């Protein structure tokens, strides 16, 4: 398989701190005259001491037609990697080799000018990707159709919404006949329908034998789009291999670290009238230990302590589970008899147990509330409670496949019958 991209012991160093001035220029020229070796962004005698090693000794190959997800924390060197491959910047040492035309989507519509119309910007933006007027003429209708901007194509782009701006930028890029497409989290903008179409378009490019490098924090998209994952950490390649396996390990590590660092204190600015308030909330496993990471099918317990300043009759405690990306999963409340005491007048603890929780691998956040018996007036609202994550393959949940989309895993069965079957709801 021929290679599309090859990085060989690539190091990239940036100068940090203040910009160079003429004083530094004179200084470095003095150094040079005294025979000290300097390069163009060198450090001059401690005047500028900080350097950032954006990449250190990075080597990897990407075969043609591959889809590679690039993951890693902020500052891990992901964007620098894309800039090196797209020739926006050059390595301090090492070698970056690329086969074919590269189109980078580091920022959608970066070359557009707000005073120009959509049509003029398509030609301007296409030109930045190396397209001629004739190339663009040929693709113009497809570009406009994909971006769905036909109605506004002769309007100056300063009148466009940011989503529309991004859509046209994306559309121009993917129609620029690239051999290699570099995508830097640009799909975070735009609506869900466009995101889906954009992912489809990237997948189509891969089917057509194009190479796609895809930076994303959304492991779900990475796993759906990419067959390989490159995990960057502190400027180095931490791992490079099969997408599912590496994304899985990355999620577990990131979740544990991020969630372990979350404070235990509840937010201080809260809604509600305050007759009764939560004093602490923790998430524990079946053994009662504090936990942040669960496997699908595990049992999760939310343990919340509260204090009432005066007697409150029949309070209702609410615990909601919210998917960080997509929203509410479920609201629970102590609305059934016996869930909570009829009257509270001091401190206590309430536990909400989710046995064999059928959640998909994602990050979740808890929202908690205490209301009156009609669940109308709020005594307390904790809108951003502790977080937890679900990752990996759990036991105990049937029919759970990686490829299924959705928020929860439901057990399901299919049946098949031959011959005509009466369908109640017919089209």
């Amino acid at each position: 398989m021929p290679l599309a991209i090859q990085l060989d012991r690539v190091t990239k160093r940036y100068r940090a701190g203040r910009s160079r001035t003429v004083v530094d220029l004179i200084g470095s020229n003095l150094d040079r005259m005294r025979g000290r070796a300097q390069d163009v962004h060198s450090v001059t005698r401690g005047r500028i001491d900080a350097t950032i090693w954006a990449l250190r000794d990075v080597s990897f190959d990407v075969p043609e037609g591959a889809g590679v997800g690039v993951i890693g924390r902020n500052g891990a060197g992901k964007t620098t990697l894309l800039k090196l491959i797209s020739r926006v910047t050059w390595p301090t040492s090492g070698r970056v080799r690329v086969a074919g035309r590269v189109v980078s989507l580091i920022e959608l519509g970066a070359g557009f000018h707000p005073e120009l119309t959509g049509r003029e910007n398509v030609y301007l933006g296409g030109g930045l990707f190396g397209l001629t007027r004739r190339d663009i003429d040929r693709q113009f209708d497809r570009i406009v159709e994909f971006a769905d901007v036909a109605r506004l194509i002769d309007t100056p782009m300063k009148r466009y919404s940011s989503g529309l701006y991004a859509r046209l930028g994306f559309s121009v890029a993917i129609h620029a006949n690239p051999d290699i497409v570099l995508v830097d989290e640009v799909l975070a903008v735009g609506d869900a329908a466009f995101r889906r179409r954009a992912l489809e378009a990237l997948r189509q490019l891969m089917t057509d034998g194009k190479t796609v490098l895809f930076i994303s924090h959304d492991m779900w998209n990475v796993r759906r789009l990419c067959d390989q994952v490159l995990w960057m950490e502190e400027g180095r390649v931490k791992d490079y291999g099969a997408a599912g396996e590496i994304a899985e390990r990355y999620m577990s590590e990131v979740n544990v670290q991020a969630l372990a660092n979350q404070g235990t204190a509840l937010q201080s600015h809260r809604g509600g009238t305050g007759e009764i308030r939560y004093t602490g909330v923790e998430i524990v496993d079946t053994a009662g230990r504090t936990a942040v990471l669960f496997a699908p099918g595990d049992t999760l317990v939310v343990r919340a302590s509260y204090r009432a300043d005066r007697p409150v009759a029949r309070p209702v405690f609410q615990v909601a589970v919210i998917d960080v990306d997509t929203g509410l999963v479920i609201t629970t409340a102590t609305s059934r008899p016996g869930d909570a005491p009829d009257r509270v007048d001091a401190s206590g603890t309430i536990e909400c147990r989710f046995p064999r929780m059928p959640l998909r691998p994602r990050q979740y956040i808890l929202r908690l509330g205490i209301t009156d018996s009609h669940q109308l007036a709020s005594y307390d609202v904790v809108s951003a409670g502790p977080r937890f994550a679900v990752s990996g393959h759990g036991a105990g949940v049937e029919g759970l496949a990686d490829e299924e989309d959705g928020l929860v895993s439901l057990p399901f069965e299919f049946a098949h019958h031959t011959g005509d079957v009466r369908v109640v709801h017919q089209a």
Partner: protein
Amino acid sequence: MPAHGLIDHAEPIPPAAYWELLMNLTKREVKGRYSQSFFGVAWAIAQPLATMAVFTLVFSRLAKMDSNGAPYPLFAFAALVPWFFFMNSVSSGTLSLITYRNIVTKTYFPREIIPLAQVCSRFIDFFAAAALYVLLMTVYGVGIGVWSLMAPVFFLLLILFTVGLTFATSAMNVFYRDVNPVVQIALQLWLYLTPVAYPLAVVPERFRLFFVMNPLSAIVEGFRSAVVFNRAPDWTLTLISASIIAAVFVSAAIMFKRMDKYFADVI
């Protein structure tokens, strides 16, 4: 399928795409400058015209400056048009890479297109002012002679010098922001150190070398000999300046291509 295997340098863009990108960036520049202004491109001729009026008052009426027998306004305007082309190009060109940092740091394309587009965007000003000059010629009853065919030659020299200098100042300004204020002040002084308001002939012999080393002297004098006096240019002066311009252009272009790898890092 890419036609060839792995390469170390950037994929070159087709010449047609290069040219069209330059034209599009030029258009973007012109449109950004003149859109939403009522008089639009008319502003392009206001600058040399107003300066001509002030020069006429100060140098011709008050200082009784000699203009070799030509009407002074015409004499000044013929030099002010190339002068403002040069000044405005270098002035905005110096800042151009910084102004366009958004695309410099985010996409790859031949970076020299950005300062080039700045110079190209001043063509429209140049030709608008040149048209006004032709009008002024009829007003003053000065005819167009055969030596006016030399005007394109001096225009070419003007473009080469302007582009070369803009390459150098724009690239240096990415690394050292002190370059811009130095350039802006230098441009102010340069106008008076170039025979724009006065003829080169009035410069005393001991300052002469300094004026000869300034390629703009030959350019403005050349334009004048072509379209004001209808006579042959000073060939020696022109050849010296052409050599200086060629040297400036080549070394600036080499410097620019060497530095452009680092633009995105420091901009």
